[in-house]
């Protein structure tokens, strides 16, 4: 197990390095930074001056090494528009986004897994059909539209939830439900198909042959095996939620990194964009490792060779 974990971490570190290279170069290939930094009215001399001031005249490899060296020490540079350093800015916004994505994921797991199980136990019943219909219908509605509709209904008409902002947990309800709604269908579908497969396995018959009652068979013998693929999916969904946060945070005016990314893209605040890109990618990498470890813990065939 330890060996397995070490190998995974090493692999993750390599992926992280690759990601940092991509994050760095992606921002640079989108156009000449000095030109866009200088603005519309700048003269050629101004541009050259800015190029020198920001060190953009040096070879790109040197620039990257410089940036990476500073980044590993926690120095991500200065924002062009905020007085804070990029790190202060991003780290103050990150908790909101993480809380939002986490709540969204928990909602989709709490809804998706039980409904997937029920659908598998009664395939083609009305509850199975209902679950699938809601799932399909949900995928067709755009996120921002869904968010706005919920806001109109629950905040404006019923007054149950605050309209926008991120001050209390009640502000998180609608955005989290909106986010969770989109990852519920895939989790539900995978739970359903995994459960259907597991329920017809020979070891389920063995469990019944031992005299176990349906509930222990379901929870101890079936579910444990059926959720293994769901873990990997959930980690991917969490990653999607970080990017989905860009839209949701704008709709609900929440000060998370999604909203910050959007603002920064409009203002061409490269140091911020680059850092957010890097951090979101790091989360993806970390989540992949985490889901591998959870899988190994759930499935002894991975853990014990």
């Amino acid at each position: 197990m330890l060996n397995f974990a070490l190998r995974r971490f090493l692999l993750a570190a390599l992926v992280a390095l690759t990601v940092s290279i991509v994050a760095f170069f992606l921002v640079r290939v989108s156009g000449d930074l000095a030109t866009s930094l200088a603005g519309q009215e700048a003269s050629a001399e101004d541009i050259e001056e800015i190029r020198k001031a920001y060190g953009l005249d040096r070879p790109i490899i040197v620039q990257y090494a410089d940036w990476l060296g500073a980044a590993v020490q926690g120095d991500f540079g200065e924002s062009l528009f905020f007085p804070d350093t990029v790190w202060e800015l991003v780290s103050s916004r990150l908790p909101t986004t993480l809380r939002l994505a986490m709540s969204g994921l928990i909602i989709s797991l709490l809804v998706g897994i039980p409904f997937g199980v029920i659908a598998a136990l009664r395939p083609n019943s009305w509850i199975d059909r209902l679950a699938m219909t809601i799932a399909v219908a949900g995928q067709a509605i755009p996120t921002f539209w869904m968010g706005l509709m919920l806001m109109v209904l629950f905040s404006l008409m019923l007054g149950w939830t605050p309209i926008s902002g991120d001050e209390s947990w009640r502000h998180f309800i609608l955005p989290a439900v909106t986010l969770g709604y989109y990852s519920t269908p895939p989790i539900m579908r995978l739970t359903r198909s995994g459960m259907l497969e597991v329920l017809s396995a020979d070891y389920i018959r063995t469990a019944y042959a031992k005299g176990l009652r349906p509930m222990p068979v379901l929870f101890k013998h079936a579910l444990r095996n059926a959720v293994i693929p769901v873990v990997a999916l959930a980690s991917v969904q969490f990653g999607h939620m970080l990017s989905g946060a860009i839209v949701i945070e704008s709709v609900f005016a929440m000060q998370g990194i999604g909203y910050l990314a959007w603002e920064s893209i409009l203002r061409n605040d490269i140091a911020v964009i680059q850092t957010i890109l890097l951090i979101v990618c790091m989360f993806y990498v970390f989540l992949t490792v985490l889901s591998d470890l959870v899988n190994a813990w759930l499935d002894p065939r991975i853990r014990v060779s």
Partner: protein
Amino acid sequence: MSALLDVQDLTVDIPVSDGELHPVRGISFSIERGETLCLVGESGCGKSLTSLAIMGLLPKRAQRTARVLRIGDLDISSASSREMAHIRGNSMAMIFQEPMTSLNPAYTIGNQLEEALIRHRRVSRAKAQERAVYLLEKVGITGAAGRLRQYPHQLSGGLRQRVMIAMALMCGPELIIADEPTTALDVTIQAQILLLLADLQREFHMGMLLITHDLGVVARVADRVAVMYAGQIVEQGTAAEVFERPLHPYTRGLMACIPIPGKTVRGGRLGSIPGLVPSLIGDMHGCAFRDRCAHATSACASYEAMRDQGDGRAYRCVMTPEETMAASMREQAA
């Protein structure tokens, strides 16, 4: 003394897309304590469904009826699902054909062995563990205590089937049902496992329903034999009698590869009989074997009755014992 297991006129019907399938059509047999009944027959003749019907583990769509279906004091045909769950793995246990997939990959051998005992006897984990080690040693597994912490994928097929046998024995069942327990295993260990099973059956004085293709083993371990064809029992009797004087042409066809009783070849398989098994869908009349039988006459199209020869010896053929023995002579001459 009444038999441990009594089955009279057991039928199983399964609705399928083009009609109703009748895979088990009025089967009757009984098993005493300490007795082994071997059920033999070609693939698809309904052996597994018969055993699942007794265990109450038939697929949901399948319909079971029986005039009598009883184990010990319990009337299985009218038992609730709670009562069935209470005797399964307890007084009646089953060993399946597929050791590779019959154990849950997510739990240790120990966990899965202890489960039945904890469920039925409410003993402590330590007590259950003790019994698991004892039984693993009984089924010939070395280093039993260490095996408890292993996972199924760490064991070979043969070991897994030994674990399955130990698992079935956890609660000290009165009846053990083994459905082709060695078919999926390496040929070299098939006989080993079957003989182990027979030894344990004798030692613990259990009744055993053994479904197998291995006629060599049948000859060595069976007290009585029931030969099944197309959902019916076509011949029944003590092993010695059935091997010595098979009365049904189908039984003789099966034994064609091991002609000399007592000198059976180890691992001898069922002989292959030319022709196809009839469809089990829809109504069936007359002798089901008549399309493949060398002695078929027009009378066979309407003959179905079992000829009772006394002492549990019976067969299902239009020919009288004298006629069928004469036919047997002609078969051998041919």
